[in-house]
C-alpha cells in the first residue's frame, strides 16, 4: 500500500504488464485503421450525395451527416452492438450477433464519417468555380474534372482537418473496451481487477495515451504548418 504512494515504484506495475498493455494498444490501432477506412469511404460517399444535383440525394446526404455527427459515440456503439443483430435475427429468423470487433469498427467508422462528410464538402466547395468551368470547357467530362481538377486541390485543402479527425477517431477507440474488445483500457481494467491497485494502472494508461496522442498531434500540427507555408509561397 505504501509503495503505491511512490510514483516510480507504482509505475512498475504498469511496466510489469507491458506485454498485455502493448497487445491492447495494437488492438486499438487495428480498430482505428479499419474504422478510418470505413469513415473515409462513407464520408466521401455522403459528401458526393450532399453535392449531388438531385434534391432528394442532397437531402439524404445531409440527413446522414447530421445523424452521425449528433449521436454520441458510446450510444452509437451500444446501439450497433445490440440492436441491428436482433433486427437481422428477426428478419432472417436465425440467431445473428456481431463480434465486438465488427460492432466497434462499424460504430466508430460511422460516427466519424459524419465529420468527414463535412470536411470533404468544405474542401470541395473551396475550389473556385472557374477551375471547374475551365476544365469542362476544355472538354473534360464531369468524372475526369472531379478526378484531375477538383480532387487533387481539395485533398490538399482538407488534409490538415482530416488528420485532426483521425486523431479524434484514435481517441474514441478507447471506448471499444466497453463492448469487451480487448484493447488497452480493457486490459488495464482486467489487470486492475486482478491486482486491486487501480492507481498505477489507470495513471499509466492515461500517461501512455497522453504521450502517443500528443506526439501524433504535434506531428499533424507541424505538417499542416509546413503545408500552409508552402501554400502561401
Amino acid at each position, binding site marked *: 500500500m505504501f509503495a503505491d504512494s511512490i510514483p516510480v515504484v507504482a509505475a512498475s506495475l504498469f511496466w510489469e504488464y507491458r506485454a498485455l498493455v502493448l497487445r491492447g494498444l495494437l488492438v486499438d490501432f487495428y480498430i482505428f485503421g479499419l474504422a478510418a477506412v470505413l469513415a473515409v469511404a462513407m464520408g466521401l460517399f455522403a459528401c458526393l450525395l450532399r453535392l449531388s444535383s438531385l434534391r432528394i440525394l442532397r437531402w439524404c446526404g445531409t440527413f446522414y451527416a447530421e445523424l452521425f455527427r449528433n449521436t454520441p459515440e458510446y*450510444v452509437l456503439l451500444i446501439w450497433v452492438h445490440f440492436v441491428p443483430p436482433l433486427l437481422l435475427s428477426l428478419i432472417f429468423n436465425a440467431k445473428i450477433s456481431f463480434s465486438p470487433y465488427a460492432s466497434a469498427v462499424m460504430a466508430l467508422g460511422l460516427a466519424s464519417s459524419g465529420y468527414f462528410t463535412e470536411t470533404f464538402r468544405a474542401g470541395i466547395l473551396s475550389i473556385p468555380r472557374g477551375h471547374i468551368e475551365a476544365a469542362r470547357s476544355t472538354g473534360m467530362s464531369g468524372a475526369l474534372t472531379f478526378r484531375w481538377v477538383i480532387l487533387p486541390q481539395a485533398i490538399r485543402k482538407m488534409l490538415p482537418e482530416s488528420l485532426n479527425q483521425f486523431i479524434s477517431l484514435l*481517441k474514441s477507440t478507447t471506448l471499444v473496451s466497453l463492448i469487451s474488445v480487448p484493447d488497452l483500457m480493457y486490459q488495464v481494467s482486467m489487470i486492475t481487477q486482478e491486482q486491486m491497485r487501480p492507481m498505477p494502472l489507470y495513471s499509466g494508461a492515461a500517461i501512455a495515451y497522453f504521450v502517443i496522442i500528443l506526439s501524433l498531434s504535434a506531428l499533424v500540427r507541424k505538417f499542416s504548418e509546413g503545408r500552409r507555408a508552402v501554400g502561401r509561397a
Partner: protein
Amino acid sequence: MRILQRIIWNSRGEFLEGLLVTAQISLIAIAVAMAVGLMICFIRMYCRPLRCLAILYIEFCRSTPIYVQLMWVNYVWPELFGWPRSFFAAGWVALALQSSGYLAETFRSGIEGVARGQREAALSTGLSPFLTMRWVILPQAVLLMAPSLMNQFLVVVKSSCLVSVIAVPDLMYRGLRLTSIWFEPIEILSFTAFLYVAIVFALSAAIKWYSDRVRSRYA
C-alpha cells in the same frame, strides 16, 4: 407499438429523471470547465513562471481520451487526493477536466483576437490592467468566442453519456438498465439513442442559428 406503450410510456419518469441527471452533470461540468479554463488561460498568458505547467495541463486535458480521464478520475483521484467521493462528482470532474483544456485555448484565442489598440487605449486612459480586462477585453472576447463556448457545451453533452459507465444514473444508464429489466433492446436502446440525437441536434441547430445571427450583426 404495444411494447412502445408498455415500456417506454410507462417508464417515462425514468427517462425524464435520466435526462435531468444528464442536464445537471453537463451544466455543472461546463460551468466548472469555464472557470478553470479561464484561470488556466490567464496563467498561461500572464504568469510567466507557471506557464509551462499551464501548457502541460492544457495539453494533457486535450490529448487524453475522455473515457481514459473518466476512469483515471474515478479510480485514481480518490486514492491520490481523497476526492471525489461520489460517482456523480467523478463524472463532472472528468467532463470538466477535458473541457477546461479546450476552453483555455478558446479563451486565449478570443483574448488575443481583440485588437491590440483596444488594450493600449484602455490602459492609456488610466484603467488598471484588471479593469481593462474586465470592461474592455473580456466583453469583446466573449462575443468572439461565444460560438466555440457553446460548441464545447455540445461536446460535454455528447460525452456525458459516458458517465453511465461509472453508474451515474443519467439517460444512457437508465436506457441500459431498462434494457436489462425488460430485455427489449430494440425499442429501448433505439429510443434512448433517438433522445440523444434529438437533444444534440436541437442544441446544435440553436447554436448555429445564434452564431449566424451574431456574425451577421457584428461582423
